[in-house]
């Protein structure tokens, strides 16, 4: 399943620069708001669902080459964070829905790993 399909199905807002999301295939999914857990546990190139919007999410995403970060409950990163994400090529997506609903929907779509 590619990132464009996920964006469409979950009606996610793209906060970073547009790119060819259909060419990005997340390997797996992960969720935690503790960045120390994400650094230790998120699979390489996976999609990460969190409500943490602190700028350190970019460093973590870069480190693990994550396919995308989905920020839930409408939490908004600062503009400087989005600028850094664009520099590093990190995709940030946003939704008003809580993390539980996002993961449930991904699972329902058949995105299992």
């Amino acid at each position: 399943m590619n990132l464009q399909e996920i964006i469409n199905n979950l009606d996610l807002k793209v906060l970073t620069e547009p790119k060819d999301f259909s060419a990005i295939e997340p390997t797996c999914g992960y969720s935690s708001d503790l960045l120390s857990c994400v650094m230790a546990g998120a699979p390489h190139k996976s999609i990460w669902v969190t409500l943490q919007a602190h700028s350190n999410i970019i460093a973590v995403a870069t480190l693990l080459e994550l396919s995308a970060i989905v920020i839930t409950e409408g939490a908004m990163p600062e503009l400087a964070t989005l600028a850094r994400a664009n520099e590093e090529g990190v995709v940030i997506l946003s939704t008003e829905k809580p993390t539980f609903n996002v993961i449930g929907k991904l699972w329902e779509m058949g995105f299992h790993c």
Partner: protein
Amino acid sequence: MANLIKPFRTDLHVHTVLSPCAEVEMIPPLIVEYALDLGITLIAITDHNSSANIEAVQKAAFKTPLNVLPGMELQTREEVHSLCLFDTIEQIYQLQKLVTETLPPIKNEAEHFGEQFVVDETGEFIRREEQLLLVSSSLSLNDAWKFVNDLGGLFIPAHVNRKAFGLLGSLGLVPTDIQIEALEISKHLNPEDAAKQLPQVRGYPLIQDGDVHRLDEFNGKMTLYLEAPTIDEIRMAIHNNNGRLVGFS
């Protein structure tokens, strides 16, 4: 003649009965007595998101060798605890105003979280704090850092090595888009081991406190060498400037 640099045995992270997780013994006269018994002459009162008992402890310490700085253990929206330390009550009340406005309106339920008592300098009950203090302000770490810094205070992420509410647990790394001046480690971690075990803290000055919730939790292992117990002097000690320094025993 210039003042002399003197040793101050220091604990900059002390709770009172206002913090729901602190024991009822954490009243001003006992805090002063126990600190002095350990030879501690400088403390900061740092209740969770609150400052209402600071003046009572300052009064209890009046005419004793114990210096009491106003502080707060602020919980920002990243679920990170940071010490905000100041010289004056006016400064902490400015921070308090902002924090009060940014806490979610949730009432404390003492049977679940613990009592939140505001007391006088003898430890006599004045009132219960109604607002639950063990919650995150909607302030971001970066905004809080800026506000405290602009007020002339010192902003030090607390117990960074702890998984719960520690900077490294919640945010993985020390943020580099703000200028964090120092990090606090908890008393169970030897400062020398900290740099070995936690590569993220390398290069940052460390302080070590008791995170005192009970009278027997004063740390007493950190000594600051200062001319006077002020934020400017503590800042110099943290940065090892002008002969001021931080020592551990």
